[in-house]
């Protein structure tokens, strides 16, 4: 058992657990008791693998980015999660969870979404399986992310505006949890990242672990070694990073780099750099690191990328941070936007602004010649074109 994986009590070191009101206990307990048996069953694995291959389009390529490599003096590989159906890594998780929900006999699916990527990925699998779908989205995000709202509606999902609090991702998550409390029997909540009460962080990480499982094979083919010197990924809640790190956690030779959003600057008051600005606390059912006042009220984060502006990180990340197993860096809006443009101009790939944060970290790393670096390109930039256009004044 890896010291970086969840223990029998649902904890990563002192982080994790299931801090939930009694109303959620039966559902979360049912999941806890059944998730491993279900996802390890042959029947589940066959359908999961088949859908990832035939529907999502996996394995996603590991692309050796020649011009980026030349610029940074290292062998840069991009793990192309942007090429997945619906345009991001989020679908790996929603495919897994919809198969699980089906096997638990659930009839109704709820989800939260910030940028809309997870909402779209959830609406997609609900269409695929013919299940009812309700997506909670902050009223402000509904305005900011109109194309994704339209995609969800076209898939048949009901998009409900979260009008409480700051009307963004954190509040959408609160509304989804309230829905689950009020619908305790037939509903499954598909959480979009490695957050929430145990077993969600572990379950979502397992579904996303396909990213590093494939990367190992692809690296072996391309470099003769299964492991890179570095694995780099952005962190909102931390699911693409958890997937990218998963099969490297117990390989001390692999340096893990997680990149948070610094917004307008870590100490500008408009930031989402949780590991720098946060303290230990409980949000959305788990003990982790979160941005909060001295009184324990959650602080609203800011990032130009809607997918990174979450006040916490998953409990596994809190533990990787605390143990020093992974390094947590922060990238500003400006650095991310420049990195997004750079990738577009050097490689002809428009990244999601979230993923551009991971790319921007390359500027700050010093490489020793022949090192191999894998960057998780978690999503494509189509949803962000408006933002890019405005920022660069195209």
């Amino acid at each position, binding site marked *: 058992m890896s010291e970086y994986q969840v223990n029998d009590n649902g904890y990563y070191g002192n982080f994790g657990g299931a801090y939930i009101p009694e*109303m959620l206990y039966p559902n979360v307990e049912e999941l806890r008791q059944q998730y491993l048996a279900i996802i390890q069953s042959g029947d589940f694995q066959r359908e999961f693998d088949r859908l990832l291959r035939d529907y999502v389009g996996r394995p996603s390529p590991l692309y050796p980015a020649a011009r980026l490599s030349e610029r940074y003096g290292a062998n840069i590989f991009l793990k192309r999660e942007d090429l997945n159906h619906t345009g991001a890594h989020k679908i790996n998780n929603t495919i897994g969870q919809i198969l699980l929900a089906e096997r638990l006999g659930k009839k109704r699916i709820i989800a939260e979404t910030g940028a809309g990527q997870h909402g779209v990925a959830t609406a997609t699998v609900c269409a695929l399986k013919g299940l009812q779908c309700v997506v909670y989205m902050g009223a402000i995000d509904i305005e900011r992310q109109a194309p994704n709202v339209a995609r969800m509606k076209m898939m048949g999902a009901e998009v409900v505006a979260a009008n409480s609090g700051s009307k963004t991702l954190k509040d959408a998550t609160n509304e989804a949890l*309230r829905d689950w409390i009020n619908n305790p029997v037939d509903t499954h909540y598909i959480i979009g990242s490695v957050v929430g009460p145990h077993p969600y962080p572990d379950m979502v990480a397992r579904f996303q672990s396909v990213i590093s499982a494939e990367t190992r094979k692809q690296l072996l083919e391309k470099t003769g070694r299964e492991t890179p010197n570095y694995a780099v990924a952005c962190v909102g809640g931390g699911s693409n990073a958890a997937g990218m790190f998963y099969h490297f956690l117990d390989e001390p030779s692999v340096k893990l780099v997680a990149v948070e959003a610094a917004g307008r600057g870590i100490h500008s008051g408009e930031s989402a750099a949780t590991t720098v600005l946060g303290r230990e*606390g409980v949000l959305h059912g788990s003990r982790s690191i979160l941005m909060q006042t001295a009184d324990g009220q959650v602080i609203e984060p800011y990032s130009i990328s809607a997918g990174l502006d979450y006040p916490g990180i998953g409990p596994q990340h809190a533990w990787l941070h605390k143990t020093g197993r992974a390094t947590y860096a922060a990238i500003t809006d400006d650095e991310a936007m420049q990195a997004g443009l750079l990738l577009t101009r050097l490689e002809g790939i428009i990244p999601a602004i979230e993923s551009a944060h991971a790319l921007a970290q390359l500027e700050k790393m010093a490489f020793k010649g022949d090192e191999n670096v894998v960057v998780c390109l978690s999503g494509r930039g189509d949803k962000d074109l408006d933002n890019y256009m405005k920022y660069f004044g195209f």
Partner: protein
Amino acid sequence: MNRINQLFADKGDRRILSIYFTAGYPTLESTLDIAEALEKAGVDFLEIGFPYSDPVADGPVIQHSSEVALHNGMTLHVLFEQLKELRKRVSIPVLLMGYVNPVLQYGVENFCESCRAVGVDGVIVPDLPMYEFEEHYQSVFEANGLSNIFLVTPQTSEERIRKIDGLSTGFIYLLSSSATTGKNLSVSESTTAYFSRVRAVGLKNPTVIGFGISDHETFVRATEYAEGAIVGSAFVRLLGEADYREKIPQFIHQLRG
């Protein structure tokens, strides 16, 4: 024996009425005035909510009161300052109710000691799991003579109800349905079957029904199946009215009937 145990031991035929309200709402300084007015009006015990930015178990009314209270500057430190006067003005049992994160930041031990110092008798923290409580906090609660109140819903298994009963020291909080606060209680056959099922378990603790009790009728229905009932959102809604002070006695009078 703390005030909660005393209340239930001495109650006789009385149907116990508890009122929930949010500290610092509608104004920062209103907390103790409201508590005092409720005791005068004949309420049996109080639940004073300390506000949290992300109250996932609450419906719109209590969410709103929490937002206003935070905006007014309510924090646990401010609340404990205010409560230094509590036992000069209020003699009925008082519980604090809120979410776990503010308690963790205040420090669980500090929190329990502050409760004892100001004369708080019990605590309801819905998102503090039984496992954590047993493992880490039970001894601190006991050392400070605090009752920790657990929730039971229609979906709670009998085995778990027994476990909760074993850990409880004041009363058990029965939710009328699995719901966020502020929904109206509809006493259907399945609700009464659930209340009866809990009764049949033979609990050592008294039970109090909450969530959805808003008027005389629902209060009476609930107290047919439990020792008492708790009114939250309906009272917090009253606090949103400009002349709430004058209306408190009448509100309580109508509830009791």
